[in-house]
């Protein structure tokens, strides 16, 4: 039986073109870009080229706006800690939301211990933060707003341009975690009016262990990693040249193909969503019905628990993920789904299916035919038989 990988929001495979691009930087151009010798200079040249390519893709004015890091988590840490600490004298208030990735939430919690005050905004029932809600939360001592572009669990897309606009008008720095958006949405930093943006490679068919932080010209920020002063003093450590080369290639291809890919994935996601909601009773879609990433399907099933569902799916070759408590380290169900007001009964039985480049219509058809049988089997041995009307969504 072949594996059908439907967990692309967790990470993607590395596509052929990217792997090919990277190869010679492991074995031929392996120099340290900081070394003054021919192999080092070649590596430096390659690094500059990659940075320049990404600069163009992000429509950034200068190469210096692009800081390469070890991935999304590091970029987020640099953005939030780096800005907060540099503006400590100006204010100590940070705004974020309850549906952010743990990288943002835990970094903010850490800063609370350093004396910062953090507001965690409640999203609407779809996991989206409205401009009005953000505006109401801004105070005179607010220095930074960090809101995700698109949600990693439920795929909902924030009105990022509008959110950034409000921050700009109030002269507050705006950071967006665009890890899920990088391969599928518009990442023109100028058009979106963004101050800081986190992107990573391993979610868009690039290698793991590479990411970047876009920092607009003029932003005040302190490094969090100290050493040899690489990346314009903001991220010390020898540059991961093969990784960065792969990342640049992957981002270029993703942005080039995204419109077509969105159309294809959107169709498949729609088919899968309807196939599940119409064929399996007592199911709900988590996240926004339209305003969501084209590759994300997140559905909750009443009366069954997510981990059990995952194990059965895996037995049929499907690799997916769940927001159930038993699949988390904290024994609590998904903080994202709970924050949208979806009751625990639904949150424990959530299934996230994220499609990718190799996902075919055949895969989707197979999923639609297999899933009802699994759900039926698990419901048969479940002691509960809840009615949909008993489990109301608490709209915010």
């Amino acid at each position, binding site marked *: 039986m072949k594996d059908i990988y439907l967990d692309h929001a967790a990470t993607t495979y590395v596509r052929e073109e990217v792997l090919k691009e990277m190869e010679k930087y492991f074995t031929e151009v392996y120099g340290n870009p900081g070394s003054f010798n021919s192999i080092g200079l070649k590596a430096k040249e390659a690094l500059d080229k990659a940075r320049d390519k990404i600069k163009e893709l992000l429509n950034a004015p200068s190469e210096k706006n692009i800081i390469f890091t070890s991935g999304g988590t590091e970029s987020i840490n640099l953005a939030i800690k780096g800005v907060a600490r540099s503006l400590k004298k100006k204010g100590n208030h940070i705004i974020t939301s309850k549906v952010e990735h743990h990288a943002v939430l835990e970094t903010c919690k*850490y800063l609370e211990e350093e004396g910062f005050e953090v507001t965690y905004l409640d999203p609407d029932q779809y996991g989206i933060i409205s401009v009005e809600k953000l505006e109401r939360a801004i105070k005179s001592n607010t220095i930074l707003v960090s809101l995700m572009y698109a949600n990693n669990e439920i795929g909902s897309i924030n009105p990022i341009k509008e959110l950034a606009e409000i921050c700009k008008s109030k002269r507050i720095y705006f950071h967006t975690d665009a890890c899920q958006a990088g391969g599928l949405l518009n990442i023109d930093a100028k058009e979106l009016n963004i101050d800081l943006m986190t992107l990573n490679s391993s979610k868009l068919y690039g290698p793991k262990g590479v990411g970047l932080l876009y920092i607009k010209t003029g932003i005040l920020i302190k490094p969090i990693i100290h050493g040899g002063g690489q990346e314009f003093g903001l991220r010390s450590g020898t540059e991961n040249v093969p990784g960065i080369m792969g990342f640049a290639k992957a981002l270029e291809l993703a942005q080039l193909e995204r419109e077509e890919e969105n159309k294809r994935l959107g169709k498949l996601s729609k088919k899968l969503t309807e196939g599940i909601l119409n064929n399996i009773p007592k199911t709900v879609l988590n996240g926004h019905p339209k305003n969501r990433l084209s590759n994300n399907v997140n559905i909750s099933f009443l009366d069954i628990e997510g981990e059990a569902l995952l*194990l059965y799916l895996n037995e049929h070759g499907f690799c997916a993920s769940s927001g*159930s408590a*038993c699949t988390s380290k904290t*024994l609590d169900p998904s903080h994202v789904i709970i924050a949208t007001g979806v009751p625990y009964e639904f949150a424990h039985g959530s299934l996230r299916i994220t499609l990718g480049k190799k996902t075919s219509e055949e895969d989707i058809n197979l999923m639609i035919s297999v899933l009802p049988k699994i759900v039926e089997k698990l419901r048969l041995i479940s*002691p509960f038989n809840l009615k949909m009307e008993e489990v109301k969504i608490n709209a915010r």
Partner: protein
Amino acid sequence: MPDELIQIEETDNKEWFYTDIVKDHFFNPRNVFKTKAESEAYAKEADGTGLVGSPACGDGMRMFLKIDKEKDKITECKWETYGCGTALASTSMFSVMLTENDGMKIEDALNIKPKDIANKLGGIPARKFHCSVLADKAFKEAVNDFFRNTNQLNRIQGTGKKIIDKVLKITDEDIEHAVLEGALSFEDVQKKTKVGIHDKGCIPEVNRLIQVYREKYFGE
């Protein structure tokens, strides 16, 4: 806790792996119903039934027992479980343990500890241990139901035990067991028992009990 001190410890890192026995019981659960109608009919003829947990908690279980009243033996055990792989497999294994070899004496069955079920399954991931305690609880509820139905009130279990977590029906004895098994902090006790996840009001009492049992057994 974002800024806690972390000490590297030597522990089993295979926390997500299930043994073949767990998988077998999970994919081929023993002693379950084939239809919902069968379950409803069985509920009427069972000698004792017990239900613990709720869908909001993320796990729940109903156990049905048939008992040979003369021999005081469990002859049949059927169950329904809402939960993860560990919860399902442990209920299945427990139902086998109760009924194999002509059935187990009630007295012996009451002495089965969650650890015994885990051992029979070839071990379960440490952080999943709490998922296996549910079978034991549902069983005690079902046996008590049987004692009540047959007017053997003196045999009802749990007298002397106090329910601390009202949602998951976790008793002081469960906390005692967890401490005995080496859970010395609230976080560790919660990992083992799930206490206080839904019934947050019980947390101060849990902390007090942990201290009591630590003193009792470890002299701390």
